[in-house]
């Protein structure tokens, strides 16, 4: 674990430098531990693939005192009660009008559409982070056979529910938005609800399996 300052109000705690399930599990543990402390000095915690970024309240505490506080509290991390990861099945309509990049993914991979779908639906993905947009899950790890680079120029708009690939990740756009990932399908599952808690259907550590419909 390395501690870095991020601007005036941020602390970035780095756990690794690759997309890795073990690193992610360490981050998940630390994130739920920090959350359970309900420290009034913490405004927000953003866990992701390799780090936890903490937005702390610099009106309440100085950076150095905050670091000491974090380090001291770490002693009790093993007492944390981690929520059980949930498993979600997400139905997807692949290709055609639902997946404008399916053709590209097939030709890039040298596979047929049926093979791409077979590969995408046969992996159990882990949610590594939620962010970018509310409820957007960054999931991995994608089978190398369907590794796909991002679009050079992002699309200005993809519809809500679009399922995309980027390198070894897969994700779902909860809202119509600009998108740099390659879209291969669409789901009707609602990933975010501003009207009720928890707002995000998925949370870090959950697993997802896609089903072709």
């Amino acid at each position: 674990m390395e501690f870095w300052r991020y601007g005036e109000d941020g602390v970035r705690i780095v756990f690794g430098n690759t997309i890795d399930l073990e690193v992610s599990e360490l981050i998940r543990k630390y994130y739920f531990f920090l959350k359970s402390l309900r420290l009034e000095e913490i405004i927000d915690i953003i866990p992701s693939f390799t780090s936890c970024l903490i937005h702390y309240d610099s009106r309440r505490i100085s950076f150095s005192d905050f670091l000491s506080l974090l380090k001291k509290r770490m002693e009790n991390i093993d007492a944390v009660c981690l929520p059980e990861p949930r498993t979600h099945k997400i139905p997807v309509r692949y290709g055609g009008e639902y997946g404008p990049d399916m053709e590209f993914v097939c030709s890039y991979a040298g596979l047929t559409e049926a093979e791409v779908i077979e590969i995408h639906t046969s992996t159990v993905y882990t949610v590594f982070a939620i962010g970018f947009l509310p409820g957007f899950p960054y999931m991995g790890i994608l089978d190398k056979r369907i590794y796909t680079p991002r679009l050079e120029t992002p699309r200005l708009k993809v519809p809500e529910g679009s399922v995309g690939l980027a390198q070894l990740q897969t994700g779902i756009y909860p809202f119509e938005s600009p998108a740099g990932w390659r879209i291969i399908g669409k789901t009707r599952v609602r990933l975010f609800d501003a009207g009720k808690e928890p707002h995000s259907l998925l949370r870090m550590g959950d697993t997802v399996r896609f089903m072709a419909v």
Partner: protein
Amino acid sequence: MIEIINPGWCSIVVDRGRYGYADAGIPTSAALDYFSYSMANHLVGNEMGGPVLEVTGSAFSLRFDVDVTCAVTGAEVIAYLDERPVTPWRSFAARAGNTLRVKEVLEGFRYYIGFSGIMEVDRVINSFSTNIECRFGGYMGRPLLKGDKIGLRHAKVIGERFIPEDALPSLSPPYVLRILEGPEMGRFTEETVGRLIEGGVQSWYTVSAKANRTGIRLEGKPLVFKKGVNKTIISEGVLPGTIQVPGDGLPIITLYERTIGGYARLALIVKADHDLLAQLKPKDKVIFRIIGIEEAERLWNRKVEHFYRALPQ
């Protein structure tokens, strides 16, 4: 009640924003210019944290059907209440039937309009701020349109208040934006970082037309990555004011609508200069200058003192 006659380019309901939900990807969507936003509330005698309108562009107008005290803050504007000129940063009483018109924005980009009383808008996830992309909060989760009517509860006329002239922000480009080193600054060449330390002509950028509440894209001399380094990062958390640099070397200033980013985070705009970001308009020139954390903290403390000095007595 107020009725929107012309919403300008974009007008939305904002407050100080949503906090505590970034782990679900929920951004703050806060008022971009916190000082101007807060003063719009203070001038009309509202509590800090109440909703106000954030308007971009000229030609905005609205009609009142109640007597209510209002105030306009932020960008330098020419505004009228019917035929009478309105002085920005000073509260004024509007009467039922009056029309408030903003004719011109002389300098800056966004202005704020506050009303004495409570705007009847949606509070979603602890905030009145509009999340435009996700369509929640504020007025039906969207920018205002011609004909929209916003209820005002407890609308009232109060005594005049103003912000002292010496407390007003000065808006005159080129703007100097002070920055702190970001996590990936080491991926850029010494020459590129040197330019930012010097803060000279070589670190001038122009605000592009691609500037909105999510981010401000800049144009100018591309920032150069060292040979062989990765130009993207494994997606990671970002805070408002983070300068991200895509592969083309042209910086993007991340504002208040994103929690995670995937480009190299060259630097962060110091907090003392965040309000200014709201006022950058396309074609404005900005100059980056790297400073140290101690200086950034001093600037912030000065800004906070300034804030309290400006409050009407």
